[in-house]
C-alpha cells in the first residue's frame, strides 16, 4: 500500500483511568471515501481528535504522505491539509458566510480585510460544492442545517485540504440533503481529496464508502474492508460482537413469571423518541433491551427513571405510581440507575469513593442532618470489599479507579440503598475484559436477591447471555419480546435491522 495518504499504526491514547485507544490502525488513500464504524464509545471521536491535532497520542506512529509526522496542534494538522467537520458544527451563527469561511485566516492586506476579494473566493468555493445559491453575505444562523454544513465544507476547502474528516455529517440531514452531500463528496474525491466518513447508518456507507475500518473498545477490529464485498451482518458483528467468549452466570431454574411484578411500565412515550412501551419486570428477573444506537433504548430507561419527563404513560414500582420526570420519586420508590455516561452522569470524580457510594442514601447515615462519616466509611468499605473494588481504600478519589471499578462504585451506591429496581445502561462499556465477568456475576446475584433488573446494551451477546427476557427496540418501538433462550444473535440482528437493510 504505497499510495496511502495517511497511515496510523498502533495509536494509543490514555485518559486518566481509562484507555480510550488501545492500538488503532488506519490507512487512507487519496481519492477514497474511508468509512469509520463503531459504537458510541468505541473511540472514533478520540481517533479523529488525534488525527486533527487536538489530542497527542501516547504511542503509535502517524505517516502522512510518506513521511512520519506529528500533528501537535489543530493548526499543524490544517497546515498539512487535514480538516475536520465536527458533528456539532463549529460555525459562528451571528457572522455571515464569508466571515465564517475565513475565520482565523481572514483575507486581508496590511491589516485591512479585503471583503470583496473574500466574497469572490467564497463564491468560487460554493460553486465547487454545487451550492451557488448560498449568498456569501447571508448570516449563517439563518441558513438551514444542511446549508450550514456546506459552509463548513467551504471553510475546509478554503484551506488546502487533502483529507476531509466528516463526523456524522448526515445526522442533521434529510434524504434529499444526504443525496446532495454525497454528490459533493464524490466531486471532492474525483479531485483526489481523501474523505474519512463517520456514520452509524450502514446503508449510507453502502452508498458512499469505498473501504471500511471498524473500531471496537478502542481497537481496530477490521481495517481496509472493501465495502462492496463485506456483508452488513459481518459489519454489525464486528461492531457489536466480542472477540472473547464470556462466561455468563447460569439462569435460575425456576421461572420468575409467577412472582409479583415489581416494575410495571404502561404505554410509556417520549414525544419524538419512542412510543407505547410496555414493560413488566418481576422480582429476580433480568430483562434486556436490545437495539441499535439511536433506537431509543437509553431514552426508555432514562424516562422510566424520571431523568426525562415522559409525555405519555405510567411507571409503577410495587404498585406505587411514580411522578413523571422526578428522579427523586423514582429513587424513593427504590429505583436505581447506572447511567450510560458513567463519568459525566454517574460520578463525582474528584470525590472519595465512599462519598460516591453513600450519595443516594445519606439519610441513612445522618442524624439531624449530621453525617456519621465513620459509619459511612465502614459501610462503603464492606461493599467495596464484597465487590472487590481495586485498589481498595474508600477515601481515594474515584478518578483514580479504572472503568470497571468505577462501575462497581456506581453499583455499590444502589446496593447500599437495597433498591428494588436496577436500571443498567451499557453496564460494561469501558470496562476491561477481566472485570466484565465480575459485573455479570454481580448483576445476577442482585437478581437472585429479588431485585428487578433492566439491562440496556449494544452488545447483543451481552443481552442474550445476561437477560432472562429480551425486548428488541427499533426506531422507538418495541418490536419483539421473548425469552432470551428463544433467541440467537442472528435472529436479534434480523429484528434490529429489519426494514433497514435488504436481507
Amino acid at each position: 500500500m504505497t499510495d496511502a495518504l495517511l497511515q496510523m499504526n498502533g495509536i494509543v491514547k490514555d485518559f486518566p483511568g481509562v484507555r480510550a485507544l488501545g492500538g488503532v490502525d488506519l490507512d487512507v488513500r487519496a481519492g477514497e471515501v474511508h468509512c469509520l464504524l463503531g459504537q458510541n464509545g468505541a473511540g472514533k471521536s478520540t481517533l479523529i481528535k488525534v488525527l486533527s491535532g487536538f489530542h497527542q497520542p501516547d504511542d503509535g506512529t502517524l505517516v502522512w504522505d510518506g513521511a512520519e509526522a506529528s500533528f501537535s496542534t489543530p493548526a499543524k494538522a490544517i497546515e498539512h491539509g487535514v480538516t475536520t467537520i465536527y458533528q456539532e458544527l463549529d460555525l459562528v451563527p451571528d457572522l455571515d458566510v464569508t466571515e465564517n469561511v475565513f475565520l482565523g485566516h481572514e483575507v486581508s492586506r496590511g491589516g485591512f480585510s479585503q471583503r470583496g476579494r473574500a466574497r469572490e473566493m467564497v463564491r468560487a468555493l460554493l460553486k465547487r460544492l454545487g451550492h451557488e445559491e448560498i449568498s456569501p453575505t447571508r448570516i449563517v444562523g439563518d441558513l438551514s442545517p444542511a446549508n450550514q454544513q456546506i459552509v463548513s465544507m467551504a471553510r475546509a476547502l478554503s484551506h488546502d485540504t487533502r483529507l476531509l474528516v466528516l463526523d456524522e455529517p448526515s445526522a442533521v440531514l434529510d434524504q434529499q440533503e444526504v443525496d446532495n452531500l454525497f454528490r459533493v463528496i464524490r466531486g471532492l474525491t474525483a479531485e483526489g481529496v481523501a474523505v474519512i466518513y463517520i456514520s452509524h447508518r450502514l446503508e449510507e456507507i453502502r452508498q458512499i464508502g469505498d473501504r471500511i475500518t471498524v473500531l471496537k473498545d478502542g481497537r481496530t477490529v477490521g481495517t481496509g474492508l472493501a465495502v462492496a464485498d463485506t456483508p452488513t451482518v459481518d459489519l454489525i458483528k464486528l461492531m457489536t460482537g466480542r472477540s472473547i467468549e464470556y462466561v455468563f452466570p447460569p439462569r435460575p431454574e425456576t421461572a420468575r413469571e409467577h412472582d409479583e411484578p415489581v416494575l410495571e411500565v404502561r404505554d410509556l412515550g417520549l414525544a419524538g423518541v419512542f412510543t407505547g412501551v410496555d414493560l413488566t419486570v418481576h422480582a429476580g428477573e433480568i430483562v434486556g433491551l436490545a437495539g441499535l444506537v439511536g433506537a431509543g433504548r437509553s431514552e426508555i430507561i432514562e424516562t422510566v427513571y424520571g431523568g426525562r419527563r415522559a409525555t405519555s404513560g405510567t411507571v409503577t414500582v410495587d404498585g406505587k405510581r411514580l411522578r413523571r420526570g422526578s428522579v427523586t420519586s423514582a429513587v424513593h420508590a427504590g429505583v436505581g440507575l447506572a447511567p450510560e455516561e458513567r463519568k459525566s452522569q454517574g460520578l463525582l470524580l474528584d470525590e472519595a469513593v465512599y462519598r460516591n457510594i453513600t450519595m443516594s442514601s445519606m439519610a441513612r447515615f445522618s442524624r439531624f442532618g449530621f453525617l456519621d462519616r465513620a459509619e459511612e466509611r465502614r459501610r462503603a468499605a464492606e461493599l467495596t470489599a464484597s465487590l472487590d473494588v481495586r485498589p481498595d481504600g474508600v477515601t481515594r478519589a474515584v478518578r483514580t479507579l479504572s472503568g470497571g471499578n468505577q462501575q462497581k462504585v456506581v453499583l455499590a451506591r444502589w446496593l447500599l440503598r437495597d433498591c428494588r429496581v436496577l436500571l443498567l445502561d451499557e453496564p460494561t462499556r469501558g470496562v476491561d475484559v477481566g472485570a466484565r465477568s465480575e459485573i455479570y456475576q454481580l448483576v445476577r446475584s442482585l437478581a437472585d436477591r429479588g431485585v428487578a433488573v433492566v439491562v440496556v446494551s449494544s452488545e447483543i451477546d451481552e443481552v442474550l447471555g445476561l437477560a432472562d427476557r429480551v425486548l428488541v427496540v427499533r426506531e422507538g418501538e418495541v418490536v419483539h419480546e421473548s425469552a432470551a433462550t428463544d433467541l440467537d444473535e442472528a435472529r436479534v440482528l434480523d429484528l434490529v435491522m429489519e426494514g433497514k437493510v435488504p436481507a
Partner: protein
Amino acid sequence: MSQDSVRVERAALETTREPNKGLALLRTSMGRNLGLVIALLLLCLVGVITAGDRFASTANTLTILKLAATIGVVSIGMTFVIIGGGIDLSVGAIVALSSVWCTTVATQTMANDTHWLVMVFVALAVGAGCGLVNGLLISYGRIVPFIMTLAMLASARGLAQIISDRKTQIVDVEGFADFFNREIVGIPMQVWIFVLVSVVGWILLNRTTFGRRTVAVGGNTEAARLAGIPVKRQTVYLYVLVGVCCGIAALMLVARTTTGSATHGNLYELDAIAAVVIGGTLLSGGRGTIVGTVLGVLIFTTLNNVFILNNRSISEQELLKGVIIVAAVLLQQRLASRNSNA
C-alpha cells in the same frame, strides 16, 4: 550503560521531581491553606517592618478582625453558593436593603415598643427573602445565576434607595448597638459573630448532608440529579443561606455605623468573591473550604490595614488586589490542569 550514568540520571530525576512534591502538597486543601497562612504571615511581617508598633498592637489587630468580620460573614455564604456551582453578585445590595429595612421608622418604633430583636428579625428576613427570590428564579425559572443576581443587585439597591429616600437612617433603638458593639473577654462581639458563622459554616459544609449535597450539586449537577439529590431545592437553599449571611452582615454594619443606608455594602460582591477565590474555592464549583475563605478575608483586610497605616492610597490597594486575584487564579488553574493530567 555504566552504573555512574544511571546514578546521574536518577539524581536528575529526583531533582526534577522535587518541585512537584511541593505542588502535590499545594493540591490538597490543607496544603493550600498552609500557603495562605504563609502569605498572611508575610503580609504581617511587611506590616511590622513598615508600620512597627502601630501595626503590631492589640488595638490594631482587633480593628483588622472587626473589619474582616462583616465581609467575612458574607464570604462564608458566598463560599457555599460557589461550591454549589453558582455565584451571587447581589450580596452587597442585599446588605444595603437589609440595613435600610431594619432601620426604618416603622421598624425602629416597633423595636422600641417591644425589643431590639425585631430589627434582627427584619434584617434576617429581608436577606432570606432576597435569597429566596434569587434561588427560586435560578432553579425553577432557569435564569443563569450571573444574570439573576445581577438583576437583584440593581433592584435591591434601588428598593433600598426608595425605602430610605436616599437618606441615612440613624439607629435610635435601645440596646441594639450596645449588644453588637460590646466585648466578650476583650474581643468585640462582631468578631465573635464571624467566628460563630465560620464554625457553623465549617460544620455545615463538612459534617452534614447539606454540605455533602452542596459539593455534589456543584461538582457534577447531572450525577447529583441522577443519584436522586433534589438539585433544585438544594440550589434554593444555598441562595437563602447567602441571603441570611447578608442579613447578619447588615446588622453588624448597622451596629458599627449606627446607621442604615442604601450605600452600605458597596462592592461587597467583589470583595467576597475575591476572598473565596483566593481561599482556593473553584469558581466552577464542587470544591472549596471555609478555612480558605476565612484566610482569604484576613489577607485582604490585613492588606487594607497595612496600606492605610503607610498612608498609601485606596487606588494602589485596589490595583494590588486585582493582581493578587489574577495570580491566585492562575496558580489554581495550573494546579487544576496538573491534577487532571495526573
